[in-house]
């Protein structure tokens, strides 16, 4: 057995190194992987830079405002209308950002994350903007919106099976094409062991290449050091996906056809599982649940915001005070400016309710769509795999939903603080001003994929395994009856 194993390792080396097609395929795959890692790292670098700029802007503004408090001033000397002790100016100068920090693995599964919002301004007077993209230019780029980025997950999900196909399509079938299977069978101690080794060697080789890319990606992005467990999961899921394709192709080879027929079946499987099924599932789900894009949501909110800003303030006061029983409408008529500021907060609170409602709708719509797509997961391995890694890397919609919630919570917190300050009609002191900076944490949202992910991939793997056994049995029975090997 060991001699067979060693002989086949040497044979595989000779088979691949003497085939230009296979050698080029491996080089192209590795090149695509390197490019995807570099490209992902570039996107994450831009993402990180924007966060550094935000942080520095926040710090600068905060330092300036705190300087006024230290100097006993209420604003800059050249702009005497600014009064930091008034809640609306305090909100303006305390404006900070809540940001989604890229997970170290994000570079390896950047996906469509650069067209989504990774940060938002926390302000009670400038409106919550959880849906506004950080990079509006990409939203207008329809091609990018459709295709996403060329990230490592794309390379592994869609190109890896093609490499496996190139390395596997003539395993056993070449021997049939050349008419040498009989000689192989009589020379080999155990034809079954020979077949298992022949089929598994290209799979293990591709698995090794996948691991190399994951390792390079992990080192390049620092994921191995920073989040070793997540990186390990990334590798594990990728290896599982590689073995799944190995099983699918083994099922084809077990039918015992020639190499051209085997290649056509494998190409058919790839087109089916990587193109037709994902597209068809998307089409079916979209026809029943149209996609609600954030840009559409932003437009809706813009209209509603103007309606609230221009509408009769009395319409909003009722719900406002009802939601805050600790406050009651002022008995005495305060100064005109204070009334105006309170009204502004009432309108903002009304708008905030709209934003929360829309956010809720959007989240429910996304969850429903994802659940609908997930129902087809066991025949949609590329999607399931891609989604699993994006969830793990914090670049999937579930992460953005959590991020949006943090934005909303931060804005609400700010709003309530300002409402309290405004209601007390006391000047904002340094302590109150500093408290306005507290907002949701800057964090990444990578998490373990849903449990269903694994079971869906396992169902398909089990089906491929059963098919391999069945095809193999049928082939053997046919061969024993006809003698045609």
């Amino acid at each position, binding site marked *: 057995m060991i001699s067979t194993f060693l002989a086949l390792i*040497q044979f595989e080396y000779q088979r691949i190194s003497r085939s230009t097609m296979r050698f080029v395929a491996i080089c192209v795959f590795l090149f695509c992987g390197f490019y995807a890692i570099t490209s992902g790292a570039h996107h994450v670098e831009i993402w990180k830079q924007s966060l550094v700029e935000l942080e520095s802007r926040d710090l600068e503004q905060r330092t300036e405002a705190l300087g006024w408090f230290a100097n006993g001033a209420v604003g800059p000397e050249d702009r005497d209308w600014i009064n930091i002790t008034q809640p609306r100016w305090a909100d303006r100068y305390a404006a900070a950002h809540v940001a989604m920090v890229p997970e170290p693995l994000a570079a390896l599964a950047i996906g469509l994350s650069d067209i989504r919002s990774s940060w938002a301004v926390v302000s009670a007077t400038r409106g919550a903007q959880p849906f506004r993209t950080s990079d509006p230019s990409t939203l207008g780029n329809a091609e990018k919106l459709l295709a996403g980025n060329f990230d490592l997950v794309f390379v592994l999900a869609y190109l890896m099976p093609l490499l496996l196909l190139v390395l596997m399509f003539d395993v056993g079938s070449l021997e049939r094409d050349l008419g040498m299977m009989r*000689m192989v069978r009589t020379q080999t101690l155990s034809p079954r062991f020979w077949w298992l080794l022949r089929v598994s060697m290209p799979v293990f080789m591709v698995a090794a290449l996948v691991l190399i890319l994951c390792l390079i990606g992990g080192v390049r992005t620092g994921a191995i050091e920073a989040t070793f467990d997540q990186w390990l999961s990334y590798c594990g899921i990728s290896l599982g996906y590689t073995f799944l394709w190995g099983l699918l192709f083994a099922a084809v080879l077990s039918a015992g056809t020639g190499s051209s027929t085997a290649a056509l079946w494998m190409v058919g499987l790839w087109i089916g599982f990587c193109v037709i099924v994902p597209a068809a599932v998307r089409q079916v789900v979209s026809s029943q649940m149209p996609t609600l894009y954030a840009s559409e949501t932003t437009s809706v909110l813009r209209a509603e915001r103007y309606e609230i800003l221009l509408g009769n303030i009395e319409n909003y006061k009722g719900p406002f005070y009802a939601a805050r029983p600790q406050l009651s409408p002022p008995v005495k008529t305060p100064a005109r400016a204070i009334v105006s500021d309170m009204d502004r907060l009432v309108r903002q609170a009304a708008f905030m309710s709209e934003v929360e409602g829309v956010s809720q709708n959007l989240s429910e719509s996304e969850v429903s769509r994802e659940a609908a797509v997930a129902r087809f997961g066991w025949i949609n391995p590329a999607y399931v795999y891609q989604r699993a890694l994006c969830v793990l890397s914090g670049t999937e919609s579930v992460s953005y939903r959590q991020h949006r919630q943090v934005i909303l919570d931060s804005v609400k917190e700010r709003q309530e603080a300002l409402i309290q300050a405004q209601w007390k009609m006391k000047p904002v002191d340094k302590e109150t001003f500093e408290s306005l900076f507290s907002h949701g944490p800057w964090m990444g949202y990578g998490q373990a994929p849903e449990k269903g992910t694994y079971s869906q991939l396992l169902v398909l793997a089990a089906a491929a395994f059963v098919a391999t056994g069945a095809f193999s049995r049928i082939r053997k029975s046919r061969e024993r009856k006809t*003698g045609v090997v």
Partner: protein
Amino acid sequence: MIETREVRKSYGTTQALDALTLTVNPGEVLGLLGPNGAGKTTTIHLLAGFLQPDSGSVIIDGIDVVKNPDGARGRLGYIPENVALYPFLSAMENLQHFSALAGLKFRRDELAKKLVTSGLASDAIHRPVSTFSKGMRQKVGIAIATSKEAKALVLDEPASGLDPHASHELSMLVRKVADEGAAVLMATHDLFRAKESCDRVVILQDGKLVQELDPRSLTANDLEKIYLKQMESNA
């Protein structure tokens, strides 16, 4: 020893072998003669385990091929009518690979010697077999089959398409393998080669053994006459 006992095999309604009983002793070469469709290849495929008999038993060196195919395979060398080899490997690499699959490990000089002994020119040993003629491939095939030093060797029309010189070399080689103690069964249409290398010759027709001859007691012409007469009488 190679044995078949009351072996029957049919393809649908066609009876390919009908109660065939054969024995090839160690050191003996048995020639299996017969027209196309007589059951020669079916017999060889049963011996090699590619087919399963409907009834009867097939035994290689005391091991039942149906009950223990892996064990029987380990004791069998097989040379098909057309030896196909991995085209991207040289003759030596092919031999090395197939020997390793059989669990055998040879040094490079041993491999070269085996190829030369099989009749391959020494300058062809390191050439890719994609450039080889049929005769050259056949010689590599012989080297592969004999390198196992199997107890039994079955050849399915091995001289088909070979020139007379190569054919003669093959006969000598087969004889040598038998002289070293192997039981050899050779299906062939070539009566002259059968006379040259076989200890016994059996004629198969319609899956039945119709005559057994000692070729050493006959001339090639006598053998041809008997064969043709047998064909006519059964037509």
